[in-house]
């Protein structure tokens, strides 16, 4: 999203030297093109964020009503062991999930790029289909598949996939299933854009297909990999839908504070703690922002973003 923003905002500026009146008119035209986006951005992102920030500075209790509390909610969130538990879980989840996700997507993209038969199109579509399934429906479907009594795996393997020792891996599986195809398409598109003559010279130099894939193709699409990784990190930090949908199946292992987002949701809509919920959401937003910035900074040489 950030990229779209900067690019479209920068568009009028690249117009170059031109007579003053013309530049003015072009600027207006440029703004007209950007206007729908700006309106949506303000209405659905900036205004709600400002409102949430205002909410987070107040405190409303059942008995005493609402009062200005400055950063009281934030201090509480920092001290709240349930928030900390969620954050730690999400980070742990991300550390495992992100490499697995990108690895699977990259492998699939390289394989499909290498295969020249017409089956590669079918594989490409098949890998992408899960992304076309709405997250809620996909998660519900996995909920049935995971069932220990009636699901196809549980009854054979005698594993309770939603028990506390398995649940994180099970959720990871749902997320990978859902998003690997999408990331794969991003990486595959980047592979399609590479100049073919590079492969040829590599072959002449004696490189095999595996070497070409690992030493030529992968480094050349590093900016796409960085982009896909960024999406994955953003998604992981906001981990919400999957645990929320699967929660009723085993509330003992997927608690109501499972991830910071789920916790914020429950604070607002189950316990009427709108202010505290806003503070947690705002903190989470800050973490997402800082996290993605650090990642981009660390990979700036490769990413070109």
């Amino acid at each position, binding site marked *: 999203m950030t990229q779209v923003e900067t690019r479209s905002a920068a568009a009028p500026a690249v117009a170059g030297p031109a007579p003053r009146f013309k530049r003015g008119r072009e600027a207006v035209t440029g703004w007209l093109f950007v206007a729908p986006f700006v309106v949506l951005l303000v209405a659905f992102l900036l205004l709600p964020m400002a409102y949430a920030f205002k909410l987070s500075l107040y405190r409303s209790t059942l*008995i005493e009503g609402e009062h200005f509390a400055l950063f009281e909610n934030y201090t509480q969130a920092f001290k709240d062991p349930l928030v900390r538990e969620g954050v730690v879980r999400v980070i742990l989840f991300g550390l495992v999930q992100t490499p697995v996700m990108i690895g699977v997507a990259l492998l699939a993209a390289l394989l499909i790029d290498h295969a020249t038969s017409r089956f590669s199109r079918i594989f490409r579509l098949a890998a992408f289909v899960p992304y076309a399934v709405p997250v809620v429906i996909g998660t519900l479907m996995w909920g049935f598949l995971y069932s220990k*009594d009636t699901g196809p795996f549980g009854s054979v393997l005698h594993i309770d996939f939603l028990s*506390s020792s398995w649940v994180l891996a099970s959720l990871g599986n749902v997320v990978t299933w859902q998003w690997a195809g999408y990331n794969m398409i991003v990486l595959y598109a980047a592979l399609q854009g590479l100049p073919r003559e590079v492969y040829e010279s590599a072959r002449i130099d004696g490189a095999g297909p595996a070497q070409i894939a690992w030493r030529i193709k992968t480094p050349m699409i590093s900016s796409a990999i960085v982009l896909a990784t960024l999406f994955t990190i953003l998604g992981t930090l906001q981990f919400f839908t999957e645990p929320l949908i699967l929660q009723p199946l085993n*509330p003992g292992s997927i608690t*109501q504070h499972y991830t910071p987002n789920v916790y914020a949701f*429950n604070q607002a809509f189950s316990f*009427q703690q*709108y202010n505290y919920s806003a503070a947690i959401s705002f903190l989470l937003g800050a973490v997402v922002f800082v996290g993605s910035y650090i990642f981009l900074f660390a990979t700036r040489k490769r990413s070109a973003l």
Partner: protein
Amino acid sequence: MTALTLAACSSSSDGDSDAGTPSGPVTVKVWAWYPSFQKVVDLYNSTHTDIKIEWTNAGAGQDEYTKLQTALKAGKGAPDVVMLEFQELPTYQLTKHLVDMGKYGANDLKSQYVDWAWKQVSQGDKVYAIPVDAGPMAMLYREDLFKQYGLSIPKTWDEYKQQAEKLKTASAGKAFMTDFGGNDGGFMTGLTWQAGSKPYTYDTSNPSTIGIAVNDEPAKKVMTYWEGMVAGGLADTKAYGTTDFYNGLGSGKYVTYLAAGWGPGYLASVAKTTAGKWRAAPLPQWTAGANDQGDWGGSSFAVTDQAKNPEAATKVAMEIYGATNTAAWKIGIDEAYLFPTATPVLESDAFLKKKYDFFGGQTVNDVFVPAYKAIAPFSWSPFNSYNFNQLTTGINGAIEKKTSWTAALDTAQANVTQYATQQGFKVQ
């Protein structure tokens, strides 16, 4: 009465529609999730010309409450009349979002309800909701499986456990006496209510003071009992409302189902294939020969502070499932499987003598009605969603990690007390 309102209406709408006063029927917006409610609404609209109900199904339980909270917080968008479960009422009373229906004649209905049910919805002369249905508890059991495994109907919880052990041996561990749904705060509270637990001492006339005893002795007794049942492999722990749970009810994995008054209808819809095999018996007792009962669920109609015409809204709340509205109750009983709270409906032949094919022709209300009448008064906290959350989180966590259930109650007690203090309550 209908004739009267008809007459009144026709005289007023006789021409002077330009007089500035609205001449058409008053529209009352209602949120409810009762099954087959459309028919009840149609019935109401076809028999009234002064009021027209506009019904929305805003989701069941928490789904509806989430929308309602948001609308109340926003200051607009809430309905005039809303379906609320008993345990939710204090929350909305305290935040002053409910209209005192006593002002519009709701107190006249008091005599139609048993004491505990009326106390759930009122405070002195103030009436915050009209009760509709309740959930007295009973034990539904598979008669065929009881015969097959040689079980007898348990009258006490001790006997219940003995039968469970017998079942475990007879079925080689394939069948469970029941499933304990640790994800349902209402179910667990119903069971502790029967044992005499009083988790909250709360009176909305003194709203800032509350007594909290989530971990009182009766509650601990109940939880220790079920901890033993689960540890012994006598009760399963599938979450209620899940596919595995329904599957267990239909496949004979569970030979009893501890149900509320609305349970027979619910069971009939989720375990259709077992029709005719179930029977109902009273809930087992803690002391032999006693008649202690608990309630699980129960709903009412309340009028919100956003009602444009609170008087008309009160009228709707009083009349939709009114005690004399036999036609509406016929739908409510036959199609929606509601357990009526109004005594005249409860004691009518249509309800008391109704035979249920699903229960092999048994008149199951013989079991539920006496249970309903024996329920002791009970008070809820004004933060029930937090309360239920603590209960379910604690007990589910204990089930999952195989830790002590009574320790979970102690933790819940500490958390709820802390929450109440943060909310500004004086905790006694």
